[in-house]
């Protein structure tokens, strides 16, 4: 379990992370979200020992985090980086050695991973000769090769085609099932919804939303209504309780302040005529994100 207790990071007068308290349970994928500049990378760097936290403490498995635990941590940085002139094999073996893995073990493990990602033919190719998508796979392997107990994935799927996204996603899910604690950062809310049970949305260095995804959604009072009808629906803009109105192919999509407002909308609609579709939806994570992390993000 990874625990952050009142972690604060200041650069001069600027506070990048403010009193952050989090706990990331074992064998779970924790979504760590936030607008650009919300303090995500700074938090990662503190967990990784690259930056010293100004205040607070970080514990991994009950012990204060230091370089001694770096063998148990895997990191996929947002800014990808590998040695361009080294071969895939030399590169991965070296990076795994730096994480305390014996050479023979790392060679075995890397063969397994290359096979899994269908890129065995690149084992002895230089990284610079690989396509961007394949480099990304190598980068992913470098983060997980040494069987980390804690894995930090910063935008792991960006720049990949849908087939490869699916391939990596499956790998992430399997790692989770094997008991790895994973911190997952992404701007793609559908990925987060699919993978994460717990999450946290950062804004200006402190969490604005935190907890179980299902509960977060439930407690978010605003709901969406999808309506399909054959007459003009623009009058709904004026209806009490409607926060947002968005036209769609079939009719419109509304955001309402709370579920009670759905009744008002329903009554007004039935007065007008036949409704082909009326569906009250839970809000998407995207809605919550825009609402909570809003302003600076838009």
């Amino acid at each position: 379990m990874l625990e952050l207790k009142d972690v604060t990071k200041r650069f001069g007068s600027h506070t990048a992370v403010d009193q952050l308290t989090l706990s990331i349970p074992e064998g779970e994928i924790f979504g760590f979200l936030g607008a650009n500049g919300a303090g995500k990378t700074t938090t990662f760097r503190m967990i990784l020992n690259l930056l010293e936290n100004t205040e607070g403490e970080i514990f991994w498995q009950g012990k204060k985090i230091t370089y001694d635990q770096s063998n148990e941590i895997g990191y996929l940085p947002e800014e990808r980086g590998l040695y361009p002139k080294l071969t895939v094999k030399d590169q991965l073996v070296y990076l795994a050695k730096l994480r305390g893995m014996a050479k023979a073990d790392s060679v075995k493990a890397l063969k397994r991973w290359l096979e899994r990602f269908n890129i065995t033919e690149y084992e002895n190719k230089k990284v610079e000769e690989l396509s961007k998508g394949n480099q990304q796979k190598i980068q992913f392997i470098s983060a997980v090769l040494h069987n980390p107990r804690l894995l930090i994935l910063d935008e792991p799927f960006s720049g990949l085609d849908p087939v490869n996204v699916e391939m990596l996603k499956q790998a992430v899910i399997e790692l989770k099932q094997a008991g790895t604690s994973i911190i997952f950062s992404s701007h793609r809310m559908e990925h987060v919804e699919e993978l994460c049970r717990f999450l946290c949305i950062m804004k200006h260095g402190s969490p604005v939303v935190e907890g179980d995804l299902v509960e977060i959604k439930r407690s978010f009072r605003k709901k969406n209504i999808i309506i399909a009808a054959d007459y003009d629906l623009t009058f709904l803009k004026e209806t009490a309780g409607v926060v947002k109105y968005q036209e769609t192919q079939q009719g419109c999509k509304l955001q309402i302040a709370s579920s009670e407002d759905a009744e008002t909308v329903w009554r007004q609609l039935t007065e007008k005529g036949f409704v082909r579709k009326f569906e009250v939806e839970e809000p998407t994570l995207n809605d919550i994100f825009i609402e909570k992390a809003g302003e600076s993000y838009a």
Partner: protein
Amino acid sequence: MRKFWIVFLHTYLSRVKTKGYIISSAIFLLIICGIFYVPDIIERFSGDSEDPVVAVIDETENQQLYEALSTSADGYQPMLFDGNEEEAKQAVENEEYEGLLVLSQSEQNLPQAVFYGMQLMNSTSDDIEAQLQQIKVAQAATQAGVDEATIQEIYTPVSFEREALDKEAKTEEELAGSYGLVYILVFALYMSVIVYGMMIATDITNEKSSRVMEILISSSSPVGQMFAKILAIGMMGLTQVALITVAVYTMIQIRGEELGGGFIDFIGIANASPVTLTFALIFFILGYFLYATICAGLGSVVSRMEDVQQLVSPVIFLVMGAFFLSIYGLSSPDSPIIVVASYIPFFTPMIMFLRIGMLGVPAWEIALSIAILVAAILLIAWVAAKVYRGGVLMYGKGGSFKQLKEALKLSGNIKK
């Protein structure tokens, strides 16, 4: 500590295995072997041609000047020309002769000559001039009534011997030996600081610009990595030095007999004392660490290869300064500038070694300069480590010294 050696080995092996390293080592070795055959090569070139022939037209009585010249001619062959001056000049232009020498008697009854050659710069004419000078002095002396024996006496060089009273002073043989050694070491240090210092800086910048740095420093401590790299590239340099030493030793074994002592003396290794050689190694290693550490710190603050050169150039100027100062010092090792410079850490490795090699320097002076140098290395290593910790996380453009300040500031935020 295990990770320190992993980084060390990786840096060392991946460098030693590169084509550039293998080729440059091979070229070095070829040049060294080549040097040992230089006397042979010179001989082959000069042995082929016979002494040049010079046409002589002698206008003196009984051609006495020609007689005098031909008895003592060395390096050329005088030959009386049968014909007038114009014909002789034509013959020279046709390259039948090296030149034309017209000898005559001055009013004071002394020899005088005109030399016609294709070019003014002509080593044969210099030889002839020197020879005529001697004949002239001899004739003038005879005219003045001085006998042969007196002239011989006048020409004998003065007896002048140097004896050093200082017990630590170098003997003449030692001096001859250390002159070459000092020259070699100063040059080796100059080259290695520029080559290896630059290599360290670019190696670090490379890891930054390829962004692999972030993964590396999340695996093990950045400062440990910095020193592992400095040590690895230093080791690689020493590997090259060792190769060269083995090559020189082997060549001396093979060629030493044939070349004779003079050539080995010229290189200056045979007479150098083990003490001087030990100091050479000490100052080489300390000098390397001093400059390599600075380069590592500087390399960590930039993220683009173009900026490395710019930031490292002041260091290069510093080394060049030390180099030129020691070239001056070779001719006057006891001048006050040299003495003062030998205590300035940036110059100590070259200048203090020069003083040790050329003069007898009291032990306390050597100890003091090494102490200052080691203290400077520790201080610079401490600052460089601080800069490095912050620098590796910095991505901006430009290679200004403002970056250094920023890196230091950021470093305060980083785990020790």
